[in-house]
Each structure stands twice: as structure tokens, then as C-alpha cells.
């Protein structure tokens, strides 16, 4: 019984290409990319050091943390959730690292502690959301607060200096243009891309986000998926905590609240719908780069600090306007 009756929709002439062009995800990626290219052209025109080797290198290194956090955020958003606690959990993980370091733990152990801290926080977030049936927004808002508090308590409100030659090298060296931290972010992006599009787990994440009822009806445990994505987000936040410590040579309990909003902005600029069910990894990575380039470029060009927020706002909206071309 072959498909003899496929008359209705006239066979699209060049399925592969034209189909990709009709795919919303493609256009959305393209939007972030266009934004990135547009900004690059503008900034390069205004200040020729923008595309200098050194500046590109620093942009990539500066973007690493945001990229990693945004990837974690992508997973939670793909299930229709949101993780408002990423930045605070990162801060807490960094403080845990700092605490262990001052206790004289070996460096690898400190790192493990940071990641485990993130993991535990993420898992608790996920469990409360899935088992407690509390909205994602509220749970992670709560843990935003709780993680900040724990960081303050653990660090006694003071930054802890962490001097380690290894970390210093890790945060300042790399291969050519690409710092180690940026390369780590790229590796994570590649792995998560494969997970999202080439494993059962990834498909189930998208299904649970697209239609929880349908996913449940086919036997997917949406609760387990929720726990898993928040754990992923937590682990990546823990990892970012290590990068943060490496970058500034200290762990500081003062959380950067705008970082969380930036991760969400990166994800959305990357064309991922906040309603869940559709996601890419490339998009959020590009989104994170757009935001980093923006700050770098505005400072490089010497835009006054009062005009910077205005410029950021306008660029974010303009970049998003490109997404209009999405279906």
C-alpha cells in the first residue's frame, strides 16, 4: 500500500531548502545572527579596534558565562518553564567553591562541590515544580531569594579571594582566539545540541513543553522531565560559578540580578518561544553573544553610561523585530 494518493499538497519543488526557509527556528536563528552581524558592522565602523584580535578574544571570554547559563535556561524554557534562580545559584555555587577553597580542599573537590551545589539546587527546584505542582516562576523566584541568602550566610557577606594558578590560566589562556572558558561553552553547546535533537530525552523535553497532556498521554513522565531540565540548568549554573571564580579570582556573595534576565533575553532573542515546545541551542548562544557584543561595543565606542541602557533597550527591541519574519 504505497502513497499513491498524495495529490493534495503539490510536492514542494525543493523540499530541503525551501522547508528550512519555512522553518520558524531557522528564521529565528537568523534573526540573532543578523543582529550580531549588524552590530559588528556598526561597531567596527565606529571604532576599528572592535574587530581586533584582542577585543574579539575578550568578547568571547566575557560571553562564556552568559552562554552557559543561557543554555541551561533554554532547557527550562523549552518545557514552558523559566529558571529565575540561575544567577543566584551561580553565586551560591561560587561561594561554596570559595568556602571549600579556604577550608583547604583540593581544587578538583572544590569544583565538584560547586557543581553539586548547582545540581542540588536545580533538582530541588525541579522537584518542587513537578511534585509540588507550584508554578515554575514562583519556585525559582523563591530559590533566587534562598540561594542569595545562603550565599551571604556561607560567605559571611564578604568576598573570598581564591588564588589558583590553574584557574588563572584557565580563565586567561586558550587556543588562539578562543579562551578555554569560551571553548568550554562551545563544548557544552555541542553536547546539549545533540542531547536536545538526537536523544529521546531531548524529544521528550520538547514534547512536554509543547503539550504536557499529549506527552503524558503517550506515557512520558512530565514530572521527571521537569526535574531533569532544572537539574541541567542547576548543573550549568554550578559550572558557571566555577568560571566566575576563575574570572574574578574571588567568590563574591553579591548576586547579579540582571544576569538572570539576560539569560532569558538571550534565549528569547535566540528565537526560543517562552511558551515551550520549540528550542534551539544555536539561537541562545548567538543571543548571548549579541548581548555581550552590545555591552562591549557601547563601551568601546564610548557611549555615555546614561545612554547605554537606552541603547541596549533599543537594540534588543530592534533585534527582536527581525523575529517578525518568524511564521
Amino acid at each position, binding site marked *: 500500500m504505497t502513497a499513491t494518493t498524495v495529490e493534495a499538497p503539490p510536492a514542494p519543488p525543493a523540499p530541503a531548502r525551501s522547508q528550512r526557509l519555512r522553518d520558524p527556528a531557522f528564521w529565528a536563528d537568523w534573526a540573532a545572527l543578523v543582529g550580531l552581524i549588524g552590530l559588528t558592522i556598526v561597531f567596527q565602523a565606529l571604532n576599528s579596534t572592535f574587530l*581586533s584580535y584582542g577585543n574579539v578574544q575578550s568578547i568571547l571570554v566575557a560571553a562564556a558565562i552568559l552562554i552557559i547559563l543561557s543554555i541551561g535556561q533554554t532547557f527550562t524554557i523549552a518545557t514552558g518553564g523559566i529558571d529565575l534562580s540561575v544567577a543566584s545559584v551561580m553565586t551560591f555555587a561560587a561561594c561554596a567553591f570559595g568556602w571549600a577553597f579556604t577550608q583547604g580542599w583540593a581544587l578538583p573537590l572544590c569544583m565538584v562541590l560547586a557543581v553539586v551545589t548547582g545540581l542540588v539546587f536545580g533538582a530541588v527546584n525541579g522537584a518542587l515544580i513537578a511534585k509540588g505542582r507550584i508554578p515554575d516562576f514562583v519556585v525559582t523566584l523563591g530559590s533566587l531569594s534562598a540561594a542569595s541568602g545562603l550565599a551571604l550566610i556561607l560567605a559571611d557577606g564578604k568576598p573570598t579571594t581564591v588564588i589558583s594558578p590553574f584557574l588563572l590560566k584557565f580563565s586567561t589562556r586558550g587556543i588562539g582566539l578562543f579562551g578555554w572558558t569560551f571553548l568550554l561553552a562551545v563544548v557544552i553547546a555541542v553536547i546539549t545540541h545533540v542531547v536536545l535533537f538526537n536523544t529521546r530525552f531531548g524529544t521528550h523535553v520538547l514534547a512536554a513543553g509543547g503539550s504536557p497532556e499529549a506527552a503524558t498521554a503517550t506515557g512520558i513522565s512530565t514530572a521527571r522531565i521537569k526535574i531533569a531540565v532544572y537539574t541541567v540548568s542547576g548543573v550549568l549554573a554550578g559550572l558557571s560559578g566555577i568560571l566566575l571564580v576563575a574570572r574574578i579570582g574571588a567568590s*563574591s556573595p553579591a*548576586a547579579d540580578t540582571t544576569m538572570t534576565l539576560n539569560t532569558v533575553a538571550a534565549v528569547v532573542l535566540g528565537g526560543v518561544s517562552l511558551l515551550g515546545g520549540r528550542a534551539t541551542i544555536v539561537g541562545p548562544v548567538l543571543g548571548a553573544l549579541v548581548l555581550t557584543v552590545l555591552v562591549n561595543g557601547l563601551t568601546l565606542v564610548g557611549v555615555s553610561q546614561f545612554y547605554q541602557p537606552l541603547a541596549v533597550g533599543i537594540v534588543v527591541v530592534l533585534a527582536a523585530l527581525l523575529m517578525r519574519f518568524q511564521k
Partner: protein
Amino acid sequence: ACGSSSSGSGPASGDPAKPAKVAAVIKGLDNPFFQTMEDGIKAGASTAGIDPTIQAANSITDTTGQADKLTALAGQDFSCYVVNPITGTNLVQGLAKLAAAKKTIVNIDSPVEEEAAQAAGATPATYIGTDNVAAGRLAGQEMVKQITSGEVAVIGGTSGDVTSGKRVEGFTSGLSSSVKVVQEVAADWNREKALTQATTVLRAHPDLKGFYVANDDMALGVVRAVENAGKTGDVKVIGTDGVEEALTSVKDGGLTATVAQYPYTIGEMGVEACAAAAAGKTLPTTVNAPVELVTQDVADQALKATPKPFGDYEDPIADLLK
């Protein structure tokens, strides 16, 4: 529930035998500066035999939160309130309440704006603190001493933040005509942002000679940026606050200098002022808290003395209590 036990904002009030009940409302404890201030308040209180209630804003931009905390405490039975407002006016409501209940108000660190105090009908019994403008000026003068001429950049706190604004204003006023501020950026009191921004600024101005940074936490990030650019020593970094980590850095040759403002002493004096007022003493209207410039040669001394000043300073309030 409002205590009528003590009254009068002046020293003439109250029962001299009774120790003061002190409440303190300070700025956000997410910054070590204010933690040290809290320690100072506690230390001062324990010497005076007082058990103080200390509250702080959630962050240094939390103006309404701080106001809410003061109003919450204003209704309670304290005789003396030590306040460190985030802006010159944000505590006006609570102050009005305090004035109505005739409580003693001790203003530390950031001054309550005169107009606001008038509107609230409140007169702080004393103001103890250093002008942030003065602290900034010290940094500016030191910068001139260090580089004599050239370009410098300023890394401020959150845009629009009062403390940051005053320090930067002071810094600029302390510069000579041969030193030019080429760029001023905001790093939101965040070390990582300061690092990122300073890296970019160094790129934009390859001839940069120095950075002034509005607090030490950020300054340490800037030091890192300078290190990463391989310009340690060539680019001077001057911070503000004088927290321990910064003093260590000065000693080790990372940070060029920092303007130490001794929040510990300010806090201590604040509580002592309350004790003095309760004892019926007349408080001086203004007490200048110590400010010291810490450079490498005095870093050791400063580290040893921290959180107290290493040099001599006047403490008229301690004299009152003697």
C-alpha cells in the same frame, strides 16, 4: 506601642540612668562596607552595654525597602535611631514618624538632606560621617600624584547611584588640568562587570594611565583586568572603602591605593552618640569621621589596624562619654 519613655531629639531629654535602646537602619549588607559598619555598631554597642537592633536595605538601590524598614522600626520602643539613608530623602517618612515621637536621630555616613529633614520636622541630633565627595577628592589628588598627567577612566557603581556619584564628583574635582577623565562607565557594584568593562576601556584607550573605581570590590576586578592586559604598574588603580582584601592587594602591589573610609568607626561612633545622648550630653552637630589614603608604604600598618584607622583621629563623642 510607641514608647513614650524617652522623648526629645536633643540631649536634654530622657532619664540619664537608663541606657539607650538603639535601632540602626543602614544600607545593603550585600556590600562589605556596610557589613563592617554593622560590626562597628555592634562593637560600639557592646562597649556601651547596649543591645542594638540592626536592619539593612536589601541592596544599595533598595530605597523603598529601606524606608519600609525604618517605618517598621519607628513604631517600636527604641529611644535612639541610627540611620544611614540610601538617598538624602528616602527615609523622610520614617524620620517624620520619629520626629513626631520625639526620638533621637543619629545620622551616619550619608547625610539626610536638609530640606527633607525640615519637611519631616526632624533634626538629626548629629551627623557622623565622611563626605563621599571628600573621599573622592583624596583619590583624585593621589591620582595626580601618581601619574602627573595623562588619561584616566572612572568605573562607577550602578548608574544614578548617589554614593558612586558623589565619589566620582569628588575624584574629578581633585584632578589637575593635566589629567583627563576620558571615559566613565557603570559596573553596577559588580566585580565581574568591572573586570569586563575595564578590559574594554583598556582596549578603547590604549594610552590609559589610571582607573578610579567607586568601591574596592570593583577595584579588585579592575586590577585583574589590568593584570590580564599585562599592564600592572603602568595603569594605576585607585579604589575606595579600604576593605581588607583591598588593603592586601595594595600591599602586594596590585591596587595602587585605596581611600579608606572606616565604616567601622562610623558605626561605632553612631552608637556611642546614642549612648551620649541618653546620658544627657550635648552632641556636636557634625563629626568628621576619619578618611585615610592607603598606599603601599602604609598598607602594612593599615592592615594591622583594620577595621580601625591606623592613624590618629578625633573622636569628640568618645570624649563626651569619658
